[in-house]
């Protein structure tokens, strides 16, 4: 399988680069497209339709190829994967139906391939990602011929250049700001290996979530959750007139680490704050009674950790790769800034394969010791290799 990564500042530019990349007779079948909400994804879809290329796409909070970070642009990872080896599914969803929709996706995967791998992206800024993972596992597991209980799931939650207003996922002729797009790959033909690494360090005393509902945290240690965060971390909320619910970007640096039984803690970022209720609206579920700690951004040497963990995948599971996809939390970009480029470059150099990725609002993947899960503040790398 041959892959090429291309980028452009506009539909016209990307169109021209795409045509150029096909001059040598290269005929991609699949384009993994990450672009800024400023770009016209409908036009991109049309462009790819014309060239007979299937599309898996998401809007971003910054996009990159091969260690080159872009903003407001379009990046594409082109693959000439045999169309028999993959399938794209697109499902409109909602917080209420997310789990059921994901079950449908899990079943669809299992019906298409014996061993499917799911690369997913979802839109919906406040949509919790956990039901998607749980639903896919549920759907996949319930299929009668299921033999392997662990299904491969990687992916990211779409971004909107930190506006936190509307994100989109799209495929050929379809797009929605509350949907799930999935690239289902036949793992018997294409190896899909990856890893999710975090590095945020827990700090301070253990606290208890004393009141929560889904992804809304009302009180921590019986005190209003928002005030706790503001007091302990010295963060402030954005003042927006006449709005109770405001974005809480400053807290992305300092997410909550939610302790769990027998598995690694999971990171949950407070994406929004409710000024009236003094509550936090997190990117994922935070159960009432959960033990949590605040956390600080990783040291700059955590880039070495990410690279080392990716190297572990290269050395053990995937010595070679045709293409790389990376879903990296936007908070990493905020936190690592100009140093971020180093991480991307070093990871890409490990396999020396074309890479595309984006800065996301949430990630799907598996940590070294954990299970497939929905994460925040994580760097999630996927390596694809035709068998």
């Amino acid at each position, binding site marked *: 399988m041959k892959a090429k990564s291309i980028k452009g500042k506009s539909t016209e530019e990307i169109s021209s680069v795409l045509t150029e990349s096909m001059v040598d007779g290269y005929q991609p079948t699949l384009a993994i497209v990450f672009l800024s909400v400023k770009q016209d994804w409908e036009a991109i879809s049309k462009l790819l339709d014309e060239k007979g290329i299937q599309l898996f796409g998401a809007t971003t909070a910054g996009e990159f190829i091969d260690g080159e970070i872009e903003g407001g642009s379009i990046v594409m990872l082109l693959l000439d994967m045999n169309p028999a080896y993959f399938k794209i599914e697109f499902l409109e969803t909602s917080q209420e139906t997310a789990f059921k929709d994901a079950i449908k996706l899990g079943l669809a995967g299992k019906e298409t391939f014996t061993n499917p791998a799911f690369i997913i992206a979802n839109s919906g800024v406040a949509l919790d990602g956990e039901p998607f993972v749980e639903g896919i596992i549920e759907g996949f597991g319930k299929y009668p011929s299921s033999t392997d209980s662990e299904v491969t799931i990687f992916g990211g939650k779409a971004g909107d250049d930190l506006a936190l207003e509307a994100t989109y996922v799209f495929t050929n002729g379809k797009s929605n700001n509350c949907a799930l797009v999935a690239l289902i790959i036949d793992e018997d033909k294409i190896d899909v290996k990856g890893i999710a690494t975090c590095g945020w360090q827990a700090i301070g005393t253990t606290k208890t979530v004393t009141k929560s509902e889904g992804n809304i945290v009302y009180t921590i240690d019986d005190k209003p959750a928002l005030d706790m965060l503001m007091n302990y*971390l*010295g963060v402030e909320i954005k003042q927006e007139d006449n709005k109770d619910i405001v974005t809480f970007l400053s807290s992305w640096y300092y997410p909550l680490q939610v302790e769990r039984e027998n598995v690694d803690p999971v990171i949950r970022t407070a994406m929004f704050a409710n000024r009236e209720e003094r509550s936090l609206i997190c990117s994922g579920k935070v159960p009432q009674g959960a033990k949590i700690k605040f956390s*600080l951004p990783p040291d*700059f040497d955590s880039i070495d950790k990410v690279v080392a963990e990716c190297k572990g995948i290269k050395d053990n599971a995937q010595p070679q790769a045709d293409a790389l996809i990376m879903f990296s939390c936007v908070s990493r970009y905020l936190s690592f*800034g*100009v140093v971020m480029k180093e991480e991307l470059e070093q990871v890409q150099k490990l396999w020396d394969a074309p890479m595309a990725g984006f800065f996301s609002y949430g990630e799907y993947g598996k940590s070294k010791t954990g299970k497939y899960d929905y994460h925040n503040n994580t760097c999630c790398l996927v390596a694809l290799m035709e068998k």
Partner: protein
Amino acid sequence: MNQHLQHILTIVHQEENLSAEQKEAIEKSIKNADKELEITAFKLDRTEKVKRTTAILLEETIEELEQKRKAIEETNAALTQSLEELKAAQAQLIQSEKMASLGELTAGIAHEIQNPLNFVNNFSDVSTELVEEMNEEIDKGNLEEAKEIAQDLKQNLEKINHHGKRAGDIVKGMLQHSRTSSGQKELTDINALADEYLRLAYHGLRAKDKTFNAAMKTDYDESIGLIKIIPQDIGRVVLNLITNAFYAVTERKKLQTEGYEPVVSVSTKKLNDKIEIHVKDNGTGIPQKVLDKIFQPFFTTKPTGQGTGLGLSLSYDIVKAHGGEIKVNTKENDGLPAGTVAEAGTEFIIVLPV
């Protein structure tokens, strides 16, 4: 680009004495320096941010821990108070147990005191008559006769004194039993102690219930001599075991009257470096499920109001404090074929080091 570097770059470009290659090399170095400067500035800025947050978090955490410390201190104080109250309640319970066992002894003690008192009364009656006789003889001028009577009188008074002292000793013993232990070990005749409590317990029960009867067997090893114990404490243990033994035989008698002879035996034995006090009964025996709990505080099989459940627990503690142990062998009455009267029963063995 950093304005100073930009300035240098501009000068380099304007410099005519530098070759194109040299200018290119300098420009590359300047760009690298600018990149490194940018990274360093970012790192510094982020480090500052994290430092500021850490300081705030530290301050808040210290305050939180201080509040927790205060809460723990308050809880600790409340717990200490509860502990004190518990200790006081425990002391009261121990005292109640003592008084309860004293109650069991009262009738026996009364019986024991009655004997010397009878003697005292009889001898004093006789003495009164003797004084009258002596006066008559003096009036008659029979001084020799009077002297003989005075001699008898003296003997009577000695007997009164002897029995008075005996009563006094019994009262002293009773007081000792109820008094808080001095904790001092004394050389004690363990056989006499066991025998005294056996009799007191028996007479006590007889006084309360005329129908009660049980054979008492004793076998004391005289070679034991005197051993160092706290007599009040070991006395209480022996009394408790004997009272329990009498209770067990009485219970069995209620169930099985024909052919059953209640027997309580107390014996002592000297072994190499220890002595044993055996208190054995042929009563109901202790069920296995109860056996594990008999030394637990407040555990009792007696009906409400009849036992505090502290007797064996305190006995266990007392013997343990003496460096000894209490062993128990038992066979339950239930399930034995009718007529096998001798099989069931319980034997408690107090083992004390010497």
